[in-house]
């Protein structure tokens, strides 16, 4: 048993690699700070566009959303980070990762917010309009506050997915938590940093999973 601990939870190795892992954790946090607000922002734009557009516009938007969703997130990420330089555009790595993952996750936020808007009865629209509110004012003051509340568990669920998604950044050499754990593993030839990183992800995300359950959320998210 002690051999097991020496191999997988070696205190010396974990102490020595903690600096690297903390730097990686900070990069992961930065990626989340781009992807989650960015995804919410563009997702909200998408949901509003689908709500306000005429039928043909909403239909083409839904095809566009499905086209983006047909890409595995890693493929989208690799395509953007390794493809853009051929167009002469070379964003800093963190920004490239942020763009790719924001594109992916905003389609999910968008669908969730749209479901929230659609969950409000048409009579709410009619009542609000009859008091003299315009379309945008109705959305802002009447529809969105109720609609967002209805889909809060799903929004939290997608935020969990977005945070998990940032681990992909390690594949395109962004020095995030997972990447740094691999580096530390290579340096010490010991898997403890990797186990520590996995435990860190768990420590960060398990509370979020519990919160989602408390909100009544399910793993029933779109693909």
């Amino acid at each position: 048993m002690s051999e097991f601990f020496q191999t997988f939870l070696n205190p010396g190795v974990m102490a020595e690699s903690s600096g690297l892992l903390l730097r990686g954790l900070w990069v992961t946090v930065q990626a989340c700070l781009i992807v989650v607000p960015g995804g919410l922002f563009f997702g909200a734009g998408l949901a509003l566009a689908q709500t306000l557009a005429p039928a043909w516009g909403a239909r083409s938007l839904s095809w566009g959303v499905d086209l983006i969703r047909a890409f595995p997130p890693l493929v989208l990420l690799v395509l953007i980070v390794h493809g853009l330089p051929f167009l002469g555009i070379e964003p800093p790595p963190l920004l490239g990762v942020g763009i790719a993952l924001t594109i992916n996750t905003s389609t999910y936020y968008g669908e969730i917010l749209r479901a929230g808007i659609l969950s409000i009865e048409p009579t709410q629209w009619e009542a609000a309009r009859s008091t003299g509110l315009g379309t945008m004012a109705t959305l802002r003051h009447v529809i969105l506050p109720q609609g967002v509340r209805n889909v809060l568990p799903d929004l939290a669920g997608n935020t969990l997915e977005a945070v998990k998604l940032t681990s992909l950044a390690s594949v395109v050499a962004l020095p995030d938590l997972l990447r740094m754990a691999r580096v530390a593993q290579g340096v010490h030839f010991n898997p403890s940093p990797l186990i520590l990183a996995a435990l860190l992800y768990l420590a960060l995300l398990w509370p979020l999973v519990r919160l989602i359950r408390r909100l009544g959320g399910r793993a029933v998210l779109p693909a």
Partner: protein
Amino acid sequence: MRIFFDAEVLAAAWPGICSGIGVTLGLALTSIAAGVALGLVLATVRALLRGAPLRPVGGLIAAYADVFRAMPPLVLLVVLYFAAPFAGIELSGFMAAFVALGLVLGASAEEIFWAGITSVNRGQWEAALSTGLSRGEAFRRVVLPQAVRLTIPPLTNRAIATGKNTALASVVAVPEVLNQAASVQAQTASPAPLLLAAGVYVALFLPLVRIGRWLETRFHIR
């Protein structure tokens, strides 16, 4: 612009990507089958032990679902492939990806089946038991068929997500579509193979994503 559709490079990449499609499909289908089976077995065990003295087992199953929902699939894959050998467990890239994707899908599938089972009215259980069916029979013939109907749309979506996640296996050198494209890209310094791979993924998954959307409106879960 021409560099993105370099015919020579595309021709060089095509055979590899074709064999990659086979690997992608093989990995996707086996991990989806294993994950759904695992989820169904766990949810069944949890349902049949409900209220019994073996209740802690249900708690363990719920904890498993939580842990694998919190763990990014790529982190799990990397741990299985790069850390497990230190414990004497040498998995091939394909096996590591199969186990990782199967465990992650198993956790969502368990949660989805469990939600379906608990949504079936208690009266259905009681009525079935009162006709003389055993617990197992009541579950299999009365509760499960009603529960499965509700699980189809979310389960389809999780299965599609698992199929897309097979691209992660490229990280542990499984020669699936993305891995094949990336290796030709590295040799030729051209983005064309990546675009070809992207096209393959769209051709594979766009119809599935549309079907998933159709199922959601059809069964009107919300």
